[in-house]
């Protein structure tokens, strides 16, 4: 192979440049279509020549050119990758784990992620990740908790915004999970680690994050409470939907109730809770009174359910609400004599009225029915119309 035109040794001090394209015409042409061969590249760093990746005299075949070659220029990204879930999985010998090429495509024609044709372009990335992560089998092999993650995401509000509306501002996979630095959710350094979820979501939803950080949930999470809810507990992660949807409005009530069991139980005793249980959302749900991201304990003066603010909160739906009205207990417990004495006694009275009435008349009716049946059979019951009854009683 004559790469250097004048191949004599010892050679002159400076040999003419090697033209790989002389033999490798196709790869060379491909490089010119991608970012590595583009004229824009030199301004951003050293030129990715053939030799930069393949080496010179020890030129390696394509299959042997690995992540290390990319690291020559993209050192920071490769370091993040190596520390991330894909890199470590590779290191453990798992040949299925993604490398640079898996996501960015083959190196020669590789496109920058700002290029609409790039597999890493914002609108294309979900499909790129899906090449591996739409496969439930893969998820099972590597203990990835969500198997059908791609399908769920594509049906979510984020997925629809990306795939249908082509919104560059809607979250794709890497907006939440990171790109090179993807880590499993159990790792504290992961962007989707529980305690990091609010700041990850807050990357886009900054206003909501601000409200949430002031709420009891946000403060508890910040204080390290492991069961206090973060964004995904209420909204879910990959199935996140519009909050205006009827189904979601009903589900969120049950969701609050998974922690606030007692509150959901007493809520279900009220008109509000009964109507929502039937599947209608015109009445107050948890967040209508307590706030959603702003939820605060009742003792907090800024809480919508603080005694000082209750009338205003009721008035959001009940225009005529006053002080008396706001004394209504929307979580009354008929079993609690201390909290709702009148209700407690009323419940007891009604229970005994029902038990008493149905017991007395239940027995009365049952015995009567039996007696009438027996009487009919033996002919000693009341006479049927036109029967012997006509003989007594004179008119």
């Amino acid at each position: 192979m004559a790469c250097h035109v004048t191949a004599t040794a010892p050679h002159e001090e400076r040999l003419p440049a090697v033209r790989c394209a002389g033999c490798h015409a196709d790869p060379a042409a491909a490089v010119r279509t991608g970012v590595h061969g583009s004229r824009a590249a030199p301004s951003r760093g050293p030129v990715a020549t053939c030799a930069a990746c393949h080496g010179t005299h020890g030129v390696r075949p394509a299959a042997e050119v690995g992540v290390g070659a990319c690291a020559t220029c993209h050192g920071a990204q490769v370091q993040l990758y190596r520390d991330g879930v894909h890199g470590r999985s590779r290191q453990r010998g798992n040949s299925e784990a993604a490398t640079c090429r898996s996501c960015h495509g083959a190196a020669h024609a590789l496109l920058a992620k700002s290029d609409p044709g790039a597999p890493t372009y914002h609108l294309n990335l979900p499909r790129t990740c899906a090449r591996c992560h739409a496969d439930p089998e893969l998820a099972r092999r590597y203990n990835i908790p969500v198997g059908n993650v791609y399908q769920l995401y594509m049906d979510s509000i984020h997925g629809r915004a990306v795939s249908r509306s082509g919104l560059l501002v809607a979250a794709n996979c890497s907006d939440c999970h990171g790109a090179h630095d993807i880590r499993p959710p159990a790792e504290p350094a992961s962007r989707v680690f529980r305690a990091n979820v609010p700041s990850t979501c807050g990357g886009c939803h900054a206003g909501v994050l601000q409200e949430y950080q002031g709420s009891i949930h946000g403060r508890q999470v910040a204080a390290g409470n492991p069961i206090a809810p973060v964004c995904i507990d209420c909204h879910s992660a990959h199935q996140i939907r519009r909050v205006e949807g009827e189904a979601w409005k009903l589900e969120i009530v049950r969701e609050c109730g998974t922690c606030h069991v007692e509150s959901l139980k007493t809520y279900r005793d009220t008109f509000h809770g009964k109507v929502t249980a039937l599947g209608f959302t015109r009445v107050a749900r948890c967040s209508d009174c307590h706030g959603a991201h702003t939820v605060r304990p009742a003792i907090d003066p800024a809480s919508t359910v603080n005694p000082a603010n209750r009338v205003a909160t009721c008035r959001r739906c009940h225009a005529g609400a006053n002080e008396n009205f706001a004394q209504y207990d929307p979580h009354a417990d008929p079993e609690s004599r201390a909290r709702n004495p009148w209700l407690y006694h009323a419940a007891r009275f009604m229970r005994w009225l029902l038990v008493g009435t149905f017991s007395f008349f239940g027995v009365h009716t049952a015995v009567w029915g039996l007696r009438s049946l027996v009487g009919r059979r033996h002919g000693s019951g009341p006479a049927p119309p036109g029967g012997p009854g006509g003989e007594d009683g004179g008119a």
Partner: protein
Amino acid sequence: MPEYYLRFSLGQRLLHGLLMASFLGLATTGMPLHFNQSRWAIWLAHTLGGFGVMGFFHRTSAVLLTLCFLIHLAHLGHRLFVKRELAVLWGPDSLVPQPGDLVELGRHVRWFFGLGPRPRFGRYTYWEKFDYFAVFWGMAIIGGSGYVLWFHAFFSRFLPGWIFNVTHLIHGEEALLAVGFIFTIHFFNSHLRPEKFPMDLVIFTGRVSEDDLRTERPEEYERLSREGRLAAIKADPPALWLRNFGRIVGAAAVTVGLVLFTLIVFAVFGR
């Protein structure tokens, strides 16, 4: 051809019809809310047209039943204060419970166990009086609490907030009592027991045959004949169309009632 006597006037029958229709309307639109945790309740609520439609028909039925109640009260007032019929308040033609009713109950129970003859019932038996006052009390309690809940903003001007908690509880529980009582005890006592099965048409035709009157209410029959009042209430036999009308309306009401009652039993004991 058997003789017939008028037991219920046309006005009374129409009022009972209005009571029936509005009561069934209230029960059908109210019970899903009470048993909101049951699948049938969710299904029924959506089938009826949803929360808004249920509320509309519940309130419409409530207004009709209130009307029914007020007409009855006005009629009673007229009889009592204008016509000075004190028999409304006491005596054999009154619905007011009297010591004799307790005696009747005791004798009836003795008859249940074969320890004595069947009591000689009059115009209104003790269970009919209970039916009447149960409905009377029920309308006052359920209706009153219902209006407090309907116009909560108005009532909150002078009632404390806990009242709404209590009225909501009482409205539902009392309604359950009323529905359960009417759909089982009243249906049985008046229609489904072996002597009457499948239906006593008197509430639709208003007429009772001489034989029935004599065997079922011997005290009334003898009293009326003794006082010579029988002739005044003599009536023509109920027309076939009227009897069929009663059968259809009655069967429909009993069916709706028993279906609802079955669903309630499912909801209460099926969990």
